[in-house]
């Protein structure tokens, strides 16, 4: 500890690269081990929420784009605004209040003893996924809607119609595929924010021992090696998802692929 700061820093970085992430004094285990046991809880939450949000958000986005300016579109627009605006920690509490406390359909906490790949676990994750996913659904449906609308006015859509293609093909193939380009990028770029933003608090509310809750406890326990590691993982995830967004874009957009 009495070595100069730059040397300490250098040592820290070099041990990181060697897979030694230090010792967590708050939990008495190697940071690496700690992360190994906890990441999966965040992962399943984020994965399920994303699937939920992407499937529902995209369907809703397509639907509202096709039914532009209809009553259904206006209602959906209102709900997506509501979805974006609702504080998800409050949503989580309200879901617990209604579905767990009043109706008793779910437990008020997440049970880690359930096998990871089981229906019970899926059921247990319903409220957390709803909590985390609602804002995502709302956001994605709006992205998709505007991307769809933007592409619906494109000339190639008129070409497709002039070819006599059925409307479902025109929308489902030509408009959709083009609309997905920006949407996938946005979803990817959103992801790291969700892992350490939304998922964070969702984990706290439902007592899911994921990376979010773990890092919050680490902050409170002055467990800096963990805080450091989590920050690094956050940065790494941001870079990773940026990269994935680029890769996805490249795969989907031949204009970039062939350059």
């Amino acid at each position: 500890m009495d070595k100069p700061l730059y040397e300490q820093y250098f040592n820290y970085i070099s041990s990181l690269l060697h897979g030694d992430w230090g010792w967590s004094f708050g939990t008495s285990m190697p940071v690496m081990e700690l992360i190994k046991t906890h990441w999966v809880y965040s992962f399943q939450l984020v994965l399920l929420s994303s699937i939920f949000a992407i499937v529902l958000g995209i369907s809703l986005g397509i639907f509202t784009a096709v039914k532009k300016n209809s009553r259904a579109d206006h209602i959906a627009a209102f709900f997506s605004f509501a979805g974006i605006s609702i504080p998800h920690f409050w949503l989580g509490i309200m879901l617990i209040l209604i579905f767990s406390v009043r109706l008793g359909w779910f437990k008020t906490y997440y049970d880690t003893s359930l096998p990871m790949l089981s229906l019970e676990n899926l059921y247990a994750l319903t409220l957390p996924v709803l909590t985390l996913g609602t804002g995502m659904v709302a956001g994605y449906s709006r992205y998709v809607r505007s991307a769809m609308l933007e592409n619906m006015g494109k000339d190639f859509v008129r070409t497709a119609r002039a070819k006599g293609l059925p409307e479902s093909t025109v929308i489902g193939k030509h408009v959709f595929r083009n609309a997905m380009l920006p949407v996938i990028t946005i979803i990817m770029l959103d992801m790291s924010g969700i892992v350490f933003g939304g998922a964070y608090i969702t984990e706290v509310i439902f007592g899911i021992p994921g990376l979010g809750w773990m890092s919050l406890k680490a902050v409170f326990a002055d467990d800096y090696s963990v805080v450091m590691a989590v920050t690094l993982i956050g940065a790494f995830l941001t870079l990773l998802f940026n990269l994935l967004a680029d890769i996805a874009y490249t795969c989907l957009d031949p204009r970039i692929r062939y350059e």
Partner: protein
Amino acid sequence: MCGRAALLSAGIGLSGCLERASEGVNQSVNTTSGAPKAGGKFIEGASGADAETLNWILVADATSLGYIGLTLDGLIAYDNNFNTVLRWMKKDIEVSQDGLAYTVTLRDDLEWSDGKPVTSEDFVYTMKNLMFADWMAYSYAGDWKEDVEGKSVFVEPKVDNETTFTIHRKTVNPEFLYTVTDLNVYPKHIASRYEGDVKGFTQAPELNDLSYTGNLGPYRYKEWIRNDKIVMERNPDYYGGRVNGEPYFDEYTIKIFGTSEARHAAMEAGDISSTAIEPEQVKKFKEMPSVQVFTVPTSQYQMMQYNMRDNGWEGLRNKNVRQALSMAISKEKIIQQVRLGFGEPAYSFIPKTSPWYDETGLLKLGAGALYDKNKAKERLVEAGYGARKNNEIQVINKNGSQIKLKLVTNTGSNVAESTAFLVKQELADIGIEVDIKLVPWETELRKYYINKVPGSDQEPRNNNGARAVSEESWDLILAGHFVDLLQPSGSEIFFTSDGGLNIYGYSNPQVDALFKKARSKDAMDKNVRKEVYAELSKLVSEDQPLDFFTFPTANIAFKKGVLGIEPGINMNYNYQEWYFG
């Protein structure tokens, strides 16, 4: 038992220390007929912070001690009446006539996980080479020291034979017995690998997962998901189970919940076997057919500290002013409004549940006839803090200004905040304005507890002498203290002039002397000690360095099916004998 570590409760309402660790043997006082059955998983619901480590010598928090206690019984346990229940010992600790030697005789069937016997050598090694070692910096090493000719030295443990060792002292301290009973042990052949290496010792996997504990406790470590749960499984080799096959539970799990609400809901749904119930919910749970709720005393008291140091209101240095303030705050109201009836009024630091409790001479401020705001005002006037105007008393500073007090307490607890506002209301009635400052517990420790003499290069500590002051000024701090019911002398850290946690600058030579006496040769006689404690209680209640509020009572809910429980202050002492009926 919540060790000395936790004497300073982690802020009001933040402490989640369920006493455990000490357990009884062969004392089946089953309330139901029929033989207990083995089987089932017991899940205890907890909230608050998770344990920090299972490597016991490094422990600084009560939760960790609780976990460790499941696998390491300890030398003895106390039942609800403070009778000694032998655990690892064959017979009770023998104290020599002169009070200088403590002989511990171990059972001969204790084993480490690798089959090696647990010997007195392990204990002596643990003390000499680990607890007393410089490199280790054991937090409670001070308990094992004594003053010999002005120097602080460690006591001397010696191996007598395979199963017997003796700890030799040079001075007499009758309460050292309780220090000895808290003794724990590491296997010498494993711990010695890391001797002198703090990092190695801290990170040693076999010490951190308790895999060495052999037959020393009713349960064995199985799984620990941080901030979620720890699972212990039945120890089939448990020495205590040789007779009747205890423990009965296949697994003992401690599950941590984020909120009390979630914990309650889990209890209500029957997902967990036991948990503490918040006051508002007790009635509901008591009425549930599937739940039994025990209302039991605790060994904690909640109070308000008066700052007698230089950075507090000068009036607080006057005993009469302190008494007057305490007189204006109703203990009954605090119990009723904040704890919804779950608490006993506290007048001094020794509760009714302690064998050393003595009511004679206690000044019962803030209750009965001594809860009197007019008298309080009059007393303030007498002390020079007020003026009479046509029969009306106006409480003011000596210079005529309004008295304003700064009350500090920790965030994150409704109990703390409610109490603070109640105090504010009560003191407003006598004309004193209270400004409430809520700060996180860590900040409270850093800015309000730790003090030093201004301008000096002292290492900041909780009590740096009479002239030391904290970084931030304060007048009142709400907090909680634990008291060791068997040896209240442990509270000297709060009440002696150089007590380590005497943050408020209280000093009374008489009190200092009495605490010393409780740990002296004279006190070998229990009657003398009883007198000493009675006198101490009386003195402290008169001096009112703090306004003792309440000894809260806890409500612990169990599933109806859990049998073998003996409700009381140490109700966990026989937890390995509980079973599902």
